[in-house]
């Protein structure tokens, strides 16, 4: 069956501060139950242990809130998008807001997600030269890979970053970093690398995912 014949909706939603510590698996269960509460005609997989046919764009790291989450969900019949948006929103725990729902047509595949933009705020225990780390070409960190810890240049994962001072020892970073199944960097790793670089301790860290980008190839 072609992608178009299936009734798939792409739902865009936010995860606020209150629910940012929910792990990906727990979040999946939470969404399942929300569809159940909203009595949506979701489609189940065939087989011994039927499950909802849903696909979440890019698992949100624990501790990160988001303004741009997406999931695809298959239904057994078509629905009015506004009603879907409203009813699912009402069934969600506070902390998850449904922004929009649209029938998936020629939307890009989640597999083609390549990067994401994050807004990061933090407080440093000592003043730092805000853009020194931004300008570095290379900074080696230990990163967990499938085959254990590996030394990598964190800057290879950073497409752009811009740090500004927003208060007394309070800083703001706007960064686009690799995300997705090809190459991925958790934003908290960027923050801890920076702290190490400056020899400072950061606290009151807030990370918000602002935007998700697809690779160039997917746009053709």
């Amino acid at each position, binding site marked *: 069956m072609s992608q178009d014949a299936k009734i798939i909706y792409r739902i865009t939603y936010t995860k606020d*501060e*209150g*629910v940012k*510590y*929910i*792990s990906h698996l*727990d*979040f999946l*269960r*939470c969404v*399942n*139950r*929300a*569809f*159940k*509460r909203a009595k949506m005609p979701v489609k189940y997989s065939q087989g011994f242990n039927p499950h909802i046919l849903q696909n979440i764009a890019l698992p949100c790291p*624990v*501790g990160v809130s988001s303004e741009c989450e997406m999931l695809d969900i298959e239904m057994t019949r078509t629905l009015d998008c506004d009603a879907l948006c409203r009813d699912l929103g009402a*069934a*969600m*725990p*506070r*902390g998850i807001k449904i922004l929009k729902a649209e029938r998936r047509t020629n939307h890009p595949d989640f597999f083609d997600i390549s990067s994401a933009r994050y807004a990061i705020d933090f407080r440093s225990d000592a003043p730092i030269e805000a853009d020194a780390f931004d300008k570095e070409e290379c900074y080696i960190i230990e990163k967990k890979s499938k085959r254990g810890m590996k030394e990598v240049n964190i800057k290879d994962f950073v497409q752009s970053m811009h740090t500004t001072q927003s208060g007394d020892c309070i800083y703001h970073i706007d960064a686009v970093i690799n995300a997705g199944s090809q190459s991925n960097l958790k934003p*908290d790793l960027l923050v801890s690398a920076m702290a190490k670089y400056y020899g400072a301790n950061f*606290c*009151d*860290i807030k990370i918000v995912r602002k935007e998700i980008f697809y690779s160039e190839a997917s746009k053709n």
Partner: protein
Amino acid sequence: MLRQQIENILPFVEKPARYTGGELNSVVKNADDVDIRFAFCFADVYEVGMSHLGMKILYSLMNERPDIWCERVFAPWIDMEDEMRKADIPLYALESMDAIKDFDFIGFTLQYEMCYTNIINMLDLAKVPLLSAERGESDPFVCMGGPCAYSAEALADFADFYILGEGEEVNLEVMDAYKDWKKEGGSRFDFLKKISAIEGVYVPSFYDISYNADGTVMAIKPKYDFVPAKVRKRIIKNLDSVYYPDKFVVPFIEIVHDRIMLEVFRGCLRGCRFCQAGMIYRPVREKTPATLLDAAQKLIDSTGYEEISLSSLSTSDYSCLKEFTDGLLDMTEKESISLSLPSLRLDSFSMELMEKVQKVRKSSLTFAPEAGSQRMRDVINKNITEEDLLTAAKTAFEGGYSSIKLYFMMGLPFETVEDVCEIAELSKKVVRQYLTTPKEKRAPGLRITTSVASFVPKAFTPFQWAKQDDRETLREKQYALKEAMNDKRVKYNYHEAPVSVLEGVFARGDRRLSKVLMRAHELGVRFDGWSDQFSQEKWDQAFADCGMDIFFYTRARSFDEVLPWDMIDVGVTKEFLISEARKAEQAITTPHCREKCSNCGASCFGGGVCFEPRR
């Protein structure tokens, strides 16, 4: 609000979602709009506490009132506790993230004795004075309820007051009294005096306890003339009309009982002599199928849960079981959710019900013969025979089940090693029952699990005077049973003896144990119910440091000894318990409430099975 401080430590702890609230159906109010803030505490981790039905009921009940905000508090796991102490974050409530030391009430539910050190640790983390006597006018009131509260003298120095029995009515009466007291303006003493007039409220500091030279209690005397000599527990007379929540908080993380729970009835007809729940929840009061099905539908709609279970003692004794399960199965099938049945009694186990449940999902069956020999089953008044068990097992195997769990106890009064070894024989007979079931009828993969707990004598049971086996005796019995259990097809589990002994000490303790609890807390004891945290050495030291003897509390008592909980009245009389204890010695059974009333005393509440027309 401590959110920012808390967020700074969450990256360093396991399962941070235990500590952040925000779940569906959790109740957030504006603190300025309420008169009373109540911190409902469960002294174990989130996953355990959130599984507790009583908390769900009372949380919703109190939050229905616009003037009360009830919030949840659980024991932080040791990693979180360390971080909280390092960052100087006081214990907070999940909904508001406000420190509970600023609340009006801090209430603990006492579900098992091994959580007592957690209670003290939580008060310490909350920065509330640990001892009732040290709390001042600006401190919250610390109250305790739940099944252990009837004999929680060990916590007497820490509790300002206890609430005994079912809380739906009395909790709100206490809240109203609090508002009146606030209006009137009075001391802490005035408030405690005021609520000591409410039936079901027990203020431990209003009683003087004197002791004999041998350490036993000489007398229990009220200190003031306004204090009742005996405090009677509260029950809900008409259970069918009692408040039941139409919403449960649905956790993000998986909890122990992650499902809808329906309370079918309270109390138990059976009168097993070891069972505290069977005595303290008397008399049996049922809900009607219509009420239950209505509650089920509402909870399915509001939670989205994929499973529903029934929560009662001996659920198969429900008088409308057929009508109810027919209706419930229709509902679960329509909503494509599964029904899980609690342990059923062997003698009323029906193929029909099993088949019905199997339609939705097949799992393992649990039977609780409790004792291996017939003589012991008569001693404990567990009215089932070996034939009942084997017939039920046969039915189960023919019905396609291949996994059966068997629950037993050891260390029961009047028990010999031979009685214990019969547990092995009985388990093996169940295996044989499987082997003699025709291959084409039975499912492959036989799994028999025999779990043996150590018996703990509890207050308000016929065995409250019994000697509890010491660690060595229990170990010998466990070893003998292991030897006798020479069949690889039976998986044999048993409880650790030291924890059971300590549980027994606190289950029948007096208030002098408050000192030991305090000392254990100072030594860093907590999470005793978690085997990886339990430290016998620290407990031995705590008892030694206080000059107290564990064996004093595990000894046999005589019927005329004043018991530390004699100021509490659960309805069931001491005379009845004594007559049951005597019958146990002779292995004489007692019929259940619907067969014949045995005049236990519970009819004093004027409701329930005691007033059902007899056939």
